[in-house]
């Protein structure tokens, strides 16, 4: 395996409590801490480990988003990616449009393996990887918690609702990563300095010939119905009585 392409998305940091705009047009992102989507960070960590173990020679990171995404790409470079590509676009795109843009990058770069998170924690769509796999006619392994390289194929373990499923997929392939795959490394200061010198290519999506008009309209973004306020009880017997009354205990 020579090249690994890792797709990352900039999202609101998972520890931030999101706020909905008062006009219900979306979620407040101004002045909010942004991070690499945690599942994508796991994908990048896996790519770096594959390279460190001699299974790959180059790790490229790519993202679609505003110029602010450069910050997350720099973080990715500091983690150890060799170079970065930003397709700069300022509005929210549909996953299929992102997949089409990434498809163009795959055509250019011809990676042997493409890794990305199983979903982004903002729109929770879980679509882009699978769409890209179909567009490229590649095999896919989604929600993957273990990757073993066997020459020109991978054995992957997937976290599915019924347990752990194992697939063998031929390369090139697209793998979407789940939480259990690894624990991403912390970035060290000298690496942040080094990352500043690594190449970052900025691409104008209008040069890629992809229709970026939305076909699904977001009418509004609202808060979920609030939970009713709870009660405070004093001890185990009161709790047991309350649970029995609600018929919540299994027989």
């Amino acid at each position, binding site marked *: 395996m020579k090249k690994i392409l890792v797709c990352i998305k900039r999202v609101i940091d998972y520890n931030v409590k*999101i706020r909905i705009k008062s006009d219900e047009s979306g979620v407040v992102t101004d002045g909010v801490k942004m991070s690499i989507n945690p599942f994508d960070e796991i994908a990048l960590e896996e790519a770096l480990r594959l390279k460190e173990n001699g299974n790959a020679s180059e790790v490229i990171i790519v993202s679609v988003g505003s110029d602010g995404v450069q910050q997350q790409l720099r973080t990715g470079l500091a983690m150890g990616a060799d170079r970065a590509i930003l397709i700069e676009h300022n509005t929210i795109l549909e*996953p299929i449009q992102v997949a089409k843009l990434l498809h163009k990058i795959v055509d250019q770069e011809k990676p042997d393996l493409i890794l990305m998170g199983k979903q982004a924690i903002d729109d929770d769509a879980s679509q882009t990887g699978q769409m890209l796999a179909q567009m490229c006619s590649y095999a896919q392994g989604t929600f993957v918690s273990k990757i073993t390289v066997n020459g020109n194929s991978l054995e992957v373990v997937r976290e599915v609702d019924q347990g752990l499923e194992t697939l063998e997929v031929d390369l090139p392939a697209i793998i979407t990563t789940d939480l259990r795959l690894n624990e991403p490394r912390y970035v060290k200061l000298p690496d942040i300095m080094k990352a500043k010198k690594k190449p970052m290519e900025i691409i104008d999506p209008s040069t890629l010939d992809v229709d970026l008009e939305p076909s699904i309209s977001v009418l509004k973004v609202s808060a*979920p119905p609030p939970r009713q306020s709870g009660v405070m009880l004093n001890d185990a017997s009161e709790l047991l009585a309350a649970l029995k009354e609600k018929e919540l205990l299994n027989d």
Partner: protein
Amino acid sequence: MTDNSKVLVVGEYFRGQVISATSKTVNCASQISSDVDLLILANDPEIANQSRLFDGISKVLTIQDAIFENPLASVMAPVIAAIAKDYDCVLVPSTTFGKDLTPRISALLDVSQLTDIMEVLSPRKFKRPIYAGNAIETLEVNEGQKIIATVRPASFKDVGNSNDAALSLIDLPNVEIPSHTRYKGLESGIQERPDLQVASIVISGGRGVGSSENFDILYQLADKLGASVGASRAAVDAGYVPNDMQVGQTGKIIAPDLYMAFGISGAIQHIAGIKDAGTIVAVNKDPDAPIFEVADIGIVADLFEFIPDLLSQLD
């Protein structure tokens, strides 16, 4: 509110049985249109046969072929895409099966997809959760465009089983079936306790549990209640339990009938994973713990005194 668009539901089954998520997806489909067909791709003809009972469907379409012995998205997607050409809307359960498969269908048909429909407002207008349910998006699919979506099972009830829908055996469409993916097996039921995502009761521990050994008391309680055991990210990061037990935005998002949190402070990302639970019980020493803000029942207590007390009363 329904219209006369043609809806295709892709059925999911496991070990010879159509699963409840399929029934729930049929329910969602019935709220969009009265013309609903269910597609069963299976090697076992009995699966299509038992699906005829679902209320609300006009017919069950089935292709019986050995290529469907195991659920491979890359094999099923081109077949479904070929069949879906005659439909206005394609719905698939939002399970790991549906999430794996549906985007490949969407890409083949060049249609923008919706994930996790939680409510049907009109045949083209839907609600879906984003940010792990911390916000709800209302979306409208543009006129004239095919709708392809996954349906969030937790948001719909099963349909009744009193139908006798027609069974239509169809031929495998003439599409290219890729060979780049090979199914090797499934390790299932390895846990002694119910799976976190299907358990009706989940017992969870946080940093307050203090150690891996101390989790034993939670396992005891779980076994007594027939519950699954989860943990907060803090407990996972501290090494008390493996990370497949993590409940939260970056772990598993669950919706049990009863969720009991012990020694969990209630970080935002944890709350995001449990907010759909029916009843949340929180036990924490700290009366100011944020978990009490979302709990339906809160108890300020030391879990090491509280749980033994609870266990003795359950005997």
